């Protein structure tokens, strides 16, 4: 027991955006991403610190407004507090937004755990002229309170002192709310019934559970329904007007806060906050959309402008490396594996690293400023019309850069079904890797119209994404998008450090993927292209060639011969490989000019074939990297396989329509 004596487990709870992650980082010295977007902390994270001889474990719970099981986040948070029984909970409270923050406090108190309030953002409250009477507040809530400014690391030691003090204090703190005679009577009645079930008594605070039942909490009802007292509880619950109770209980919490609030805080009489003034411009009826579009356009311009020199450098480096390997490595097959397979394959994926880094950096700045919430606010109407949520817009947009981070960005969408739909349709958004295919074929076959053709591809991608979202809503993922009940947080100056951390975390994840799955993918393809032993790399008699022939009957109606089929198989690893492998298959290697010439000279490739090929490439399936994040983010093979099959089916149908329709029209 003795060694346990200096261990303290503390959970951090709080509304979204109150500085929880900032405080977590300040205490533990770790580097977590902070943002100004409701709900950024999706999973709980823990960190450690040593303080005055104690080992303190800090768990950063998801930010929630309440613990009523509206979302997964709320269930995760409260289950942690109930089941893992931390020694205490620190609730971070936004001093500039006390009323709504205290609502969560009233619920935490019912969980019968020790609570410390960290009154954060004190600088903002002071700046605004609010006055908070700390002693009075401690007295009225019966909890210890510590003032902090997490972003300046102020008040941290004081807070840790309090943690230790509380740890050694056996008194139970916190004033629970009284709900009035009628409700209290029911609470008492239910509590008495629950007390008969030892399993429940051991695990849950009975008063809390009774209140949750009266509020109609499905999650708790399920638990009780499996217990020995199910029927008795249901008898009581059937006798009341659930809706009425639910409203009354929430009402009572807020009215209690209304009574306490004026006694602990005088709010400055502010006419218009800075944030309100910024919003008058940024979400203005007429300016809102133009500003939004130019910001997004600017972000993309910056992404590509900054990334291009780095991309060129990476390309040069890999070309050099491949050259080195092919001249110096022995035996020849090994040189081919490393050069043609691994280096070329991994290089073609790593080339997007600069894009991804910059995209995430900019996104994190937008998020940290509070603008992303406005973007969702501005776009929700449009998105709702196509069966999606306002929050889906940013991931879709990011898809134009690279589908991989875009799919990851869907994490900020709380509703599971909204998120799933977003993940499934993002692959149709034409990412940067598909552009070289359009440039080659549109440039070769459509001359002056090349720009229009490429633009049409982008539009087609969007249309397919939109139509698919609608289709999913009607079939496999039925229902309406989740309601848009979202806080628009005050604008803040984004933190550079935090943006850099965000950029690094996501970029590193992508690189890691290039090092694992993609490496595996390119190796397999190299093996297929090099065997049976002795064939020319990627030639008709290699396994890839055989596979190409195998697929040919299936792809023939779209106008593709075996060589294009092979290229498309390669394209599954990464779409940017398509152009390279067509080069190999047409025997001209990397030279684009020569490739154009030989494509033009080849009777098997017409403008119509190439149009069909572009359509198919746009839609047919996400690359290995995108597929692996789909698996990771949905946690389901079923949906991953669905995404692949659906993509191939749509691509096939669209390319079929283009090719056969074109032929009928005489092209």
């Amino acid at each position, binding site marked *: 027991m003795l060694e346990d004596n200096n261990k303290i487990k503390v959970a951090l709870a709080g509304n979204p955006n109150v500085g929880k992650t900032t405080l977590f980082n300040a205490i533990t010295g770790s580097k977590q991403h902070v943002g100004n977007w409701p709900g950024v902390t999706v999973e709980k994270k823990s960190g450690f610190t040593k303080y005055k001889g104690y080992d303190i474990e800090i768990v950063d719970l998801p930010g929630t407004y309440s613990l009523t099981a509206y979302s997964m986040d709320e269930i995760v948070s409260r289950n942690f507090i109930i089941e893992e029984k931390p020694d205490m909970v620190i609730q971070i409270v936004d001093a500039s937004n006390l009323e*709504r923050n205290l609502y969560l406090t009233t619920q935490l108190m019912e969980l019968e755990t020790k609570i410390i309030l960290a009154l954060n953002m004190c600088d903002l409250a002071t700046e605004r002229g609010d006055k908070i009477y700390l002693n009075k507040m401690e007295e009225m809530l019966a909890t210890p309170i510590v003032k902090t400014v997490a972003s300046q690391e102020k008040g941290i030691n004081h807070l840790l002192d309090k943690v230790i003090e509380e740890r050694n204090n056996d008194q139970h703190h916190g004033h629970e709310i009284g709900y009035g005679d009628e409700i209290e009577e029911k609470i008492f009645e239910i509590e008495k019934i629950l007390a008969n079930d030892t399993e429940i008594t051991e695990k849950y605070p009975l008063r809390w559970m009774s209140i949750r039942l009266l509020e109609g909490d499905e999650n708790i009802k399920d638990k009780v329904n499996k217990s020995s007292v199910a029927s008795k509880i249901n008898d009581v619950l059937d006798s009341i007007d659930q809706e009425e109770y639910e409203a009354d209980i929430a009402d009572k919490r*807020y009215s209690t806060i209304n009574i306490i609030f004026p006694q602990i805080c005088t709010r400055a009489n502010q006419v218009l906050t800075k944030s309100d003034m910024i919003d008058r411009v940024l*979400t203005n009826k007429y300016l809102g959309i133009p500003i939004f579009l130019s910001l997004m356009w600017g972000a993309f311009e910056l992404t590509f402008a900054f990334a291009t020199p780095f991309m060129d450098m990476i390309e040069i480096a890999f070309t050099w490396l491949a050259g080195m390997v092919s001249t110096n490595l022995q035996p020849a097959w090994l040189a081919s594996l490393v050069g043609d397979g691994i280096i070329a394959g991994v290089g073609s994926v790593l080339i997007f690293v600069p894009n991804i880094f910059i995209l995430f950096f900019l996104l994190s700045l937008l998020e940290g400023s509070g603008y992303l919430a406005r973007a969702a606010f501005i776009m929700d109407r449009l998105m709702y019309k196509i069966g999606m949520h306002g929050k889906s817009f940013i991931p879709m947009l990011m898809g134009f850069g690279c589908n991989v981070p875009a799919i990851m960005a869907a994490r900020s969408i709380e509703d599971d079904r909204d998120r799933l739909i977003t993940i499934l349709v993002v692959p149709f958004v034409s990412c940067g890797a598909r552009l070289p295919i359009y440039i080659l074929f549109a440039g070769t076959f459509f001359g002056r119209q090349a720009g229009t053709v490429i633009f049409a591809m982008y539009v087609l991608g969007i249309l397919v994404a939109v139509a698919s979202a609608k289709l999913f809503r009607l079939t496999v993922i039925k229902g309406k998008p989740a309601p848009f009940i979202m806080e628009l947080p005050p604008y803040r100056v984004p933190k550079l450090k935090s943006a850099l951390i965000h950029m690094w975390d996501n970029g590193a994840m992508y690189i890691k993927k290039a090092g694992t799955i993609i490496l595996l993918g390119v190796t397999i393809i190299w093996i297929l292209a090099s065997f049976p032993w002795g064939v020319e790399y990627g030639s008709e008699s290699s396994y890839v060639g055989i596979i190409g022939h195998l697929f040919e009957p299936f792809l023939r109606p779209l106008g593709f011969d075996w060589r294009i089929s092979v290229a498309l198989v390669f394209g599954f690893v990464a779409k940017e490989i398509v152009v390279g492998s067509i080069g190999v298959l047409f025997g001209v290697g990397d030279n684009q000019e020569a490739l154009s010439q030989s494509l033009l000279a080849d009777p098997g490739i017409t403008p119509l074939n190439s149009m069909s090929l572009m359509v198919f490439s746009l839609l047919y399936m996400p690359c290995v990297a995108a597929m692996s994040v789909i698996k990771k983010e949905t946690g389901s093979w079923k949906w991953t396989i669905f995404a692949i099959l659906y993509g191939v089916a749509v691509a096939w149908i669209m390319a079929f329509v283009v090719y056969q329709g074109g032929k009928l029209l005489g092209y």
Partner: protein
Amino acid sequence: MLSTNETTLDTLKPGDKAKILKVRVKGSSIRRKLFDMGIVAGSEIQLIRRAPLGDPLEFKIKGYNLSIRKMEARDIFVQVLE
């Protein structure tokens, strides 16, 4: 006892302040979420603006800014304050 300035939340004009009377939104989890965000009977609420495309709406309530769609606002009954 229907007073003349009783209406639903979606009909407010920007700048209008109102007192919430009753939340009749269907779907208990949505209703509870609204409660959690401070949309309870007795709260004072002000319409700040409509989104550029007309929906959702942005309100000020309990000192912070909250946005909800018209669809939900339609089922929230309020009394307009002068």
